[in-house]
């Protein structure tokens, strides 16, 4: 890890690198770690200057978009500089005819959606965390219900500009959806938690806004019913945009979203209701909770719930739900692709959290997936394996060492202590 000190010379170097450099305040903490300075560059060139100055003085840097998920993952081992990209907030180009948008990383996802909606389009990433930036969304790879139809950030990102830890600006991909020239660095950056490079611009493919939509929901009294309902829908031909499960205390609901043309949606809604049976209902409104994760995002410090992300093969749903019940977890997620989020209530004793994480992880890995502790109180992060076993960790370390040989960026936040 980079081990310089934030002395006067370093401070001066940063101040001349960037329009806006200030001492970190109370609200700038990164999961309990108080940064030295907050640098808020005006553009990509200033991001590069900040990183060059940090490199010259051996300082650690933690990038921040809008700060909505900054406590996720492990706390950084050090954060001399908090690199805040929120001033890079412009949606640069919406080329509606080409179904693409170019944006700066600090733009809020919601603001971008507003811009492209004017042209009848959307970026098919649900806003699961209100106020999130595009860059933060990419760095954490968040996704919501509609990933069933349109995939996740990795499937939608077609071009990216990053600043490396040494201050070099580089881009990959471009403005066209179809492009196999060179390595797909965008995919490497998605979900990399600010440990490889700082994202400053991103280009996405867009989808048309659906003319009509309809939700079909059905209460499920037990594990078997939930599993059967999901299997019926995913192996059907109604082409759902979302197949969600909501689960607490051994029962819950399965909800299906249909999007498309007016009459098409009406017909497909009838098909799905036929698959699910008489107990199903339909509505224009999303089920309670919508795209939100099943924990309180506003809670900080020890008031946080233990937030989990679970992935599993579709056939593992019943086992995952049963394990969630046994663990006292509430769960919500894309049952239709085998991704769910779960929460263990605030104040759950560490021993119980450990047991629950072990049990759920065993079930998920047994079904070809994984469990990650997304966020949790510090005592929990210290007491459990947050990232879990990661295959190919050695290769990941080598990638990190190439991109950031001094381990300057977000040190120790990621898998295997990267």
């Amino acid at each position, binding site marked *: 890890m980079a081990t310089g000190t934030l002395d006067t010379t370093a401070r001066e170097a940063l101040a001349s690198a960037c329009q806006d450099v200030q001492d970190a305040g109370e609200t700038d903490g990164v999961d309990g770690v108080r940064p030295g300075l907050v640098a808020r560059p005006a553009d990509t060139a200033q991001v590069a200057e900040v990183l060059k100055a940090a490199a010259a003085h051996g300082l650690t840097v933690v990038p921040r978009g809008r700060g909505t998920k900054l406590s996720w993952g492990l706390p950084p081992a050090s954060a001399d500089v908090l690199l805040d990209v929120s001033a890079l907030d412009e949606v640069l180009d919406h080329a509606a*005819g*080409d179904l*693409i948008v170019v944006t700066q990383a600090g733009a809020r996802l919601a603001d971008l959606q507003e811009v492209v909606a004017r042209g009848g389009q959307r970026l098919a990433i649900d806003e699961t965390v209100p106020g999130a930036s595009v860059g933060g969304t990419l760095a954490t*790879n968040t996704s919501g219900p509609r990933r069933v139809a349109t*995939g996740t950030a*990795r*499937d939608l990102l077609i071009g990216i500009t*990053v600043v490396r830890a*040494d*201050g*070099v600006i580089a*881009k*990959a991909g*471009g403005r*066209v*959806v*179809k492009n*196999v*020239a*060179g*390595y*797909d660095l965008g*995919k490497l950056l998605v*979900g*990399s938690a600010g440990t490889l490079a700082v994202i400053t611009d991103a280009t996405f493919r867009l*989808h048309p806004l*659906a003319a009509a939509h309809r939700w079909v929901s059905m209460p499920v009294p037990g594990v078997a019913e939930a599993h059967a309902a999901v299997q019926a829908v*995913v192996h059907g*031909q*109604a*082409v759902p945009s979302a197949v969600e499960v909501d689960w607490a205390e051994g029962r819950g609901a399965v909800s299906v979203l249909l999007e*498309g*043309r*007016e*009459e*098409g949606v*009406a*017909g*497909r809604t009838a*098909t799905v209701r036929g698959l699910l049976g008489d107990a199903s209902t339909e509505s224009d409104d999303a089920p309670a909770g919508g795209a939100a994760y099943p924990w309180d995002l506003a809670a900080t410090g020890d008031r946080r719930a233990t937030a989990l*992300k679970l*992935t*599993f*093969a*579709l*056939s593992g749903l019943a086992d995952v739900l049963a394990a969630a019940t046994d663990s006292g977890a509430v769960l919500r997620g894309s049952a239709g692709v*085998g991704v769910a989020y779960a929460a263990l209530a605030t104040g759950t004793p560490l021993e119980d959290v450990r047991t629950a994480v072990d049990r759920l992880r065993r079930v*998920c890995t047994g*079904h070809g*997936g*994984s469990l990650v502790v997304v966020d949790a109180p510090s005592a929990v992060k210290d007491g459990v394996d947050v990232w879990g076993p*990661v295959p*190919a*960790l050695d*290769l*990941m370390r080598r*990638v990190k*060492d*190439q991109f950031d040989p001094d381990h300057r960026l977000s040190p120790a936040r990621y*898998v295997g202590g990267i």
Partner: protein
Amino acid sequence: MGQAGAAIEAVTRRARELLPADAVVTDRARLRTYECDGLAHYRVTPALVVLPRDAAQLAGVVRACAEQGVPYVARGAGTGLSGGALPHAEGVLVVTSQMRAITDVRRDDQRAVVEPGVINLDVTRAATPHGYYYAPDPSSQQICSIGGNVAENSGGAHCLKYGFTTNHVVGADFVTSAGETVALGGTAPDAPGYDLLGTVVGSEGTLGIVTSVTVRLVRLPEEVRTILVGFESTDQAGAATSAIIAAGIVPAAIEMMDALAIEAAEAAVQCNYPHGAGAVLVIELDGASVEVEQEYAEVERLCTENGAFEQRLATDPAERALIWKGRKSAFAAVGRISPDYIVQDGVIPRTALPQVLRAIADLSGTSGVRVANVFHAGDGNLHPLVLFDDAVEGAGDAAEKVSGAILDLCIEHGGSITGEHGVGMDKAKYMPRMYTDEDLDTMQLVRCAFDPQSISNPGKVFPTPRLCGEVPGRRKGAHPAQQAGLAEVF
């Protein structure tokens, strides 16, 4: 025997210990049958060819290569069009065509697990009885293999709606350039840690070799409608395409062919396309019947509004197959109207289509080189076929020039030098036109992480290799290549 020769000898000895006798090829005549892939004008005879039967054999050979510092090149079915599988004269060609088991088809999980030598279309054949298929469908899908698809991130006619190989591969067993086997991704999506799988797919064999691939299976649509639409000009066909996209419809495919391409396809497969058409569109809609019904009515109206003089709906699988036959055989078909041709692959933003097509026509007019246009109109992926007769002196060079100028047009319009055929050997020299030195240097950081010895398909994709010992930004003294006498001062 030189150093390289001794190293190859050592790898050959190791290969003979690991593989059956007929899977180790050293005979000169047999070696020569592997001298090129689908891009036949580059030819290199490899020093050794191995055809491993399983992952352990393959990893063993790669390990031997790593120990001896011998370069190796992976080859699937050898159908690639950019010379990505062009052998190395002092290296090993690792052919995966004998690893062709479909290990598992798991309908409940919407997954199949296959070996790299499995033919693309066979995955769909195995999944269809379960109501599923494998979506990426390159035109060569009857002969190309999944391993090659992974290396090239292959697309196809239907990637407008369904995406490319990278959107359909969720896991792989991967042999690193050191010969170690690691698991990338998984059965479930969103594996924790860096998305190394997303980086490997499309890396053209420069990062390592996959020995098992887990793919996503897609539910067969309830209904498929394929429409063949005749227009007087490519401008009209382009305007119709824009109108369809603007109406919020995402067809499974929109393919365009111009008059010359139609002529070739007619000559080759008698596909009976609309007579006298200056351009045809092949539009495919798929999904739930009620939805397709709606979209079809709208597509038909939009085509009429934009000057379509004939619209033909395929009413049964045989008619649909005939429509697609004309399109999918287009590359080979130009062989009927020209002794030689170059298949180009470039991408432009779709809205630039009319300008770029006119510019290509101008290029053709001024140079006298005929160009037939076949392309995935929905996503702006052009496949101009540049026709020439190699028996005529200078004709090949003139065709090369036009072909290169078309790529320049793509770059000028903010597009890409390759949409699906890859960079390989053929286009490495064009990479600096699309990317800066810093961009290429950054990509090669990945290469250095995966393959520090630079033995996995060296010389492809990047025009200038990066020396992996360097730490960026901290270069001191003479450059290592300079010190080693490998390069002049630079």
